[in-house]
């Protein structure tokens, strides 16, 4: 297989959480990546993945590592960005159950830990029509719930009961589940298509 040496570089926000799992998938797909931990790192990337983790911790570290403002600007200017689970919270405009200020970029209302504590974590089939998938393995760990989305935003992933668990708006994708914990890399490939050469 030929190496994608000319491929744009993907940043994986590496402040806290399961960024290594995303990195392993990018490595397998032979996509150049860097771990983003400073504002300078943001200048080297063409797309960003915000991983799962503890959203309060990630938001605080965005601030103490001086990434917050620049990141917000970059995403608003069109940086392709994908947030998984905690990443969804970081990007949302309104979050129930969080006292911290998020990036406030996406017109969605999200409730943290909406399904309950760890005992209520679950796995379920997710349907993603764009990928022609009815049974994407959805892993929901103390997951947030998307309660409301603006009319401009397209749902891309749903549970059997119709609950929205993934959305897309322009340069941004959000999933409340963790594709990085599965063997299925189709959502990673889908995100990579958003990034221009």
């Amino acid at each position: 297989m030929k190496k994608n040496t000319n491929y744009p570089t993907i940043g994986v926000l590496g402040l806290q959480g399961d960024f290594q799992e995303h990195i392993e998938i990018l490595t397998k797909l032979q996509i150049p990546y860097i771990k983003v931990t400073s504002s300078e790192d943001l200048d080297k990337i063409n797309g960003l993945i915000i991983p799962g983790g503890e959203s309060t911790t990630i938001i605080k570290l965005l601030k103490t590592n001086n990434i917050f403002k620049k990141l917000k600007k970059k995403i608003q200017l069109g940086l392709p960005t994908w947030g998984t689970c905690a990443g969804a919270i970081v990007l949302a405009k309104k979050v129930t159950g969080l006292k911290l200020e998020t990036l406030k970029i996406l017109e969605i209302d999200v409730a943290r830990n909406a399904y309950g504590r760890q005992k209520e974590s679950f796995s379920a089939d997710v349907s993603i029509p764009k990928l022609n998938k009815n049974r994407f393995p959805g892993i929901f760990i103390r997951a947030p719930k998307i309660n409301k989305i603006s009319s401009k935003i397209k749902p891309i992933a749903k549970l059997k009961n119709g609950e929205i668990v993934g959305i897309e708006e322009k340069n941004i994708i959000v999933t409340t589940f963790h594709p990085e914990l599965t063997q299925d890399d189709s959502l990673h490939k889908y995100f990579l298509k958003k990034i221009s050469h």
Partner: protein
Amino acid sequence: MAGKTKKNSKNVKVDQHKLNIGLAQMLKGGVIMDVVTPDQAKLAEDAGACSVMALERVPSDIRAAGGVARMSHVKLIESICKAVSIPVMAKVRIGHFVEAQILESIGVDYIDESEVLTPADEQFHIQKNNFKTPFVCGARNLGEAVRRIHEGAAMIRTKGEAGTGDIVEAVRHMRTINEEIISLNKMSAVKLNKKAKEMRVPIAILKDIRKNKKLPVVNFAAGGIATPADAALMMQLGSEGVFVGSGIFKSSEQYREQLTLAKSIVKAVTNYDKPDILRNVSSKITSTMKGQSADSLVNNEKLSMRGN
């Protein structure tokens, strides 16, 4: 039909275990802080802790108080669960599966079957596979780690020597586990089989570890971490996150100093390989835990000697 039901229930268990390992994966690169009151839990959350460990006393006080250390009071754990939105862990005595049942009923997110409390069973650890709630367990070496994983632990931490503020044991345990993992590589099939017997574990787990060059669950450092530099040291040695026990709230009586230290440790774990940032966060520290050298303890005072 009966066969089918059995298969399904096995799948449910496998799924749950994956979800439980998954929560530990979400904690990676983070700091889990011991707290004894809802206010301390809030301080930890404000400092950026990814989880808190709800306790009645921090290990250094347990050490000083002597007597029998048990699971914390139910109401205390409940009040800490209510105070914060990050995951809450709590400790049970080694082998005390009823304390674990109670914690599961409370709804804590992780159970630490911990040598810091007085062991309840000298022979058996808890059969952790019987629970829906995930467990973290301490280990001094690979054999202990794998035995705990085989019993169902979804996360491992070094035992270190809790309550001392002395990092030496945590370093020893992390190095030992790493070296033992590397040494699996050179073993012939016969030797690996012998090793599995020696460790009293199924050979399949050892084969899996040999192939992936790491434990099948997340591995944190614990026991004696008192400064941002200690935390970064453990990260550079390959740990995937850290527990801080007595280190924060035994450093000072002052809220502000405690918060500064807690924040500094959180930032140090993220930036563990950046000396300039480590210097910067270390310069903000005005007070650290006095501690007690692990070397000065006789064997029966060492909490890490409990459980095997």
